[in-house]
C-alpha cells in the first residue's frame, strides 16, 4: 500500500512539473465562453492564443513609438494628424474602402500613425548619418534636358553662353516644349553615365553639350548608333541646401527597419516574456 501511495505521489509531482502557466493578464479567469461541461475559454487563454499568432508588427510598432518619444519625436501630434486624415477620408465617403482594407477606421489610424512615426524615426536616423548617405547617393539638384538634334543643342548652348540666358529660357526659345524644372538627382536616377561623370567632376553651372550614345537595332535589323545630347545646369551639389528633400528621398528608398534596428542597438531593451522574446529575437538579431 505504501509503495502504491509513493508511486501515485511521484506521478502527481511529474504532472506538476509540466508547462502550466499562470495568467499574465488581469482578470485572466474571466470567461469568453463556456462549454457544456462548464470548462471556460478564458481571457488568459485568448491572450495566449493571440500571442501565438504573428504579432511582430504590433511589437515593432510599439517599440518604434517608444523609441521615437525618446528621440524627441512628437508621437501624439502624429497620431492626431493621422486621426484628422482618417476623419477627412470618412467625410469624403471612403469609410467602406478603409474598413475593407484595414478592418476599421481605428485600425487604419493606428497603422497610419505607426507608418508616420516610423518615417520620422528614419528621417532622424538619416539626418544623423547624412554624410554617409551623401557619399552613397551623390545627390545634386539640376535642370536637365535632352535633345536628339545636335544642331538644336548647339543653338541652345550658344544662346546660353553668348547671350547669358538661363537654360530654361534658351531651350524654350528654340522650341523645347517639355517643362524644365529643377529636380533632385542621385546616382540611382535614370540618367546616362556621361551625365553622372560630368556632375561628379565639375561644379555648379552650365555643362554645355554632353553626348550619350547607345546602340539600337533599326527596322531592318541593323545596328545603329543613336546619340542623345544632354544639356545640364547644375544648381547645387551641397546637400545641406536641399537636405529635407534628400532625406525624404532616402526615407522612401531605404528599408524602414534599418533605422529601427540601429536604435534598438542604442537602447536597452529588456524582454520578460518568452514568446515575445522568441518572436522578436528571431526577427532582430540585436535582441539576442
Amino acid at each position: 500500500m505504501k509503495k502504491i501511495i509513493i508511486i501515485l505521489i511521484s506521478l502527481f509531482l511529474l504532472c506538476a512539473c509540466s508547462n502550466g502557466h499562470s495568467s499574465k493578464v488581469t482578470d485572466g479567469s474571466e470567461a469568453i465562453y463556456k462549454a457544456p461541461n462548464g470548462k471556460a475559454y478564458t481571457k488568459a487563454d485568448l491572450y495566449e492564443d493571440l500571442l501565438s499568432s504573428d504579432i511582430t508588427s504590433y511589437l515593432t510598432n510599439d517599440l518604434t513609438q517608444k523609441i521615437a518619444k525618446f528621440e524627441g519625436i512628437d508621437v501624439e501630434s502624429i497620431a492626431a494628424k493621422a486621426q484628422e486624415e482618417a476623419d477627412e477620408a470618412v467625410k469624403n465617403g471612403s469609410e467602406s474602402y478603409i474598413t475593407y482594407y484595414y478592418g476599421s477606421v481605428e485600425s487604419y489610424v493606428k497603422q497610419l500613425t505607426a507608418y508616420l512615426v516610423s518615417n520620422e524615426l528614419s528621417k532622424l536616423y538619416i539626418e544623423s548619418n547624412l554624410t554617409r548617405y551623401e557619399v552613397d547617393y551623390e545627390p545634386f539638384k539640376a535642370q536637365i534636358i535632352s535633345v536628339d538634334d545636335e544642331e538644336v543643342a548647339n543653338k541652345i548652348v550658344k544662346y546660353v553662353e553668348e547671350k547669358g540666358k538661363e537654360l530654361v529660357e534658351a531651350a524654350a526659345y528654340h522650341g523645347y516644349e517639355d517643362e524644365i524644372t529643377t529636380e533632385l538627382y542621385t546616382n540611382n536616377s535614370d540618367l546616362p553615365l556621361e551625365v553622372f561623370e560630368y556632375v561628379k567632376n565639375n561644379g555648379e553651372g552650365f555643362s554645355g553639350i554632353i553626348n550619350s550614345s547607345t546602340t539600337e537595332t533599326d527596322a531592318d535589323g541593323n545596328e545603329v548608333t543613336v546619340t542623345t545630347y544632354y544639356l545640364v545646369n547644375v544648381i547645387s551639389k551641397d546637400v545641406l541646401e536641399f537636405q529635407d528633400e534628400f532625406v525624404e528621398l532616402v526615407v522612401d528608398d531605404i528599408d524602414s527597419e534599418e533605422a529601427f534596428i540601429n536604435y534598438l542597438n542604442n537602447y536597452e531593451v529588456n524582454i520578460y516574456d518568452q514568446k515575445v522574446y522568441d518572436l522578436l529575437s528571431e526577427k532582430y538579431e540585436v535582441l539576442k
Partner: protein
Amino acid sequence: MDIKEVLKKYWFIGLIALGLLVYLVVYTVSAIEARPTYVDTKTDENGNYIIYTVGDEKLLADDLYETLYEDAGAYRSYLKWSRAVIDKAVKSNDEINELASNYANYINYNNNEETIDSELKSAGYPNGYDDLLEYCTVNLVKADYLYREFYTNNFDTYAGNIIEEYHPKKVYHILVKVENVEETEDEDGNSVFVANMSDEEQQKLNDVLNALDNGEDWAEVCAKYSDDTTAENAGYLGIYDDQTVGQQMVTAFADGVIALDYDQTSDIILSEYGYHIIRVEKPTDEELKADKQFMSEFSSYYSYSNLIAIKEKSDELGFEIIDEKLKAFIEENIENAASEIASEETATESEGEE
C-alpha cells in the same frame, strides 16, 4: 548489506528514481532544443506582468492584450468557439479519422511545412504544423458533417438557389468500349478523340443505337451491352451537377452531361474510354438530401449561413457565450447570413416574375 540485496529490497524506489531521471533528461533536452535562451518573468510595482522595457518605458501584458483584443480578439475567440462546437457536436469514428488522415496527407503533399505552419497559426491553431491532423479532423471532416446535417434539415430554405444554379442531375450512361482511341488536335488546337473501331465494337455500337431507337428499355439495353461496371444498375453513376461533373469526369463526358436537360438522352459522345450514351433525370429532394457530395456543396456556396449552423448547434449543446465582442461578432455575421438568403430569394422572385 550486499548491493544486490539492497536493490532487491528497494526495487520500486529505484524504478521511480529511474523514471524521474529519464523524464528530467528528456524534458531538459527538449526545452534546450526548443528554447536556447530563457527569459525570466517580471512584474511592476502593482503586480502587472511586463512584456518588455525600453529605458523607462514599458509594455504591460494588459496593454498588449487590449491592443490585440481590439484588433483580433473577436475573430480569434470565434475560431476557438466554432471549433469547440464542431468537435463536441460530431463524435470521432473510424470513417472520420480516415478521411482526416487522407486530407492531411493531401495537404502535406501539396504544400511545404512552413506554409502549412503559418496558415494553421492564422486559423487559430497555436502549434501550427503539429496541429495539421486536428485541423483536418475538426475544420474539414467534422465541419462537413455538421454543415450537411444543418442544410439537410433546412433543405427547403437553402436548396433552391443551388439547384437553380448548379442543375444537379441523376446521370446514367451506356459505354461501348473502344480499345484504340487516339487523341489529336483540331485546327483550333482543341483536343479531339478519334476512334479506330474494330468490327465488333462498331457492331455493338450499332446494336445499342438500334435498340434505343426501337424503344427498348434503357436498363435492359444497358445490362445487355454496356462495358461499364454500372451495366447491371442501368448505368447509374450518381448525382452530379455543373460543378462536380467537370471536377470528376473526363471533359467530353462532363460537357455531355451539362448540355442535357432532364429526361434527355445524348447522342454518342467519344471519350478516351470509348463511346458513351448519356441519360439524365431530375433527382428528388430526398435523393439530393441523401447525396453527400451535393449536400457538401452548400457550405462553400453560403458564406455566412454556416455560422447559423454552428450557432444553432452551440445553443443546442449548451455553450454559453459571455464576451460581448464575441457576441457582437456572431450577431453581425448571422445578420449577413440572413441577408444572404433574402437577397437570393429576391433575385429568384424577380427572375420568376420576368
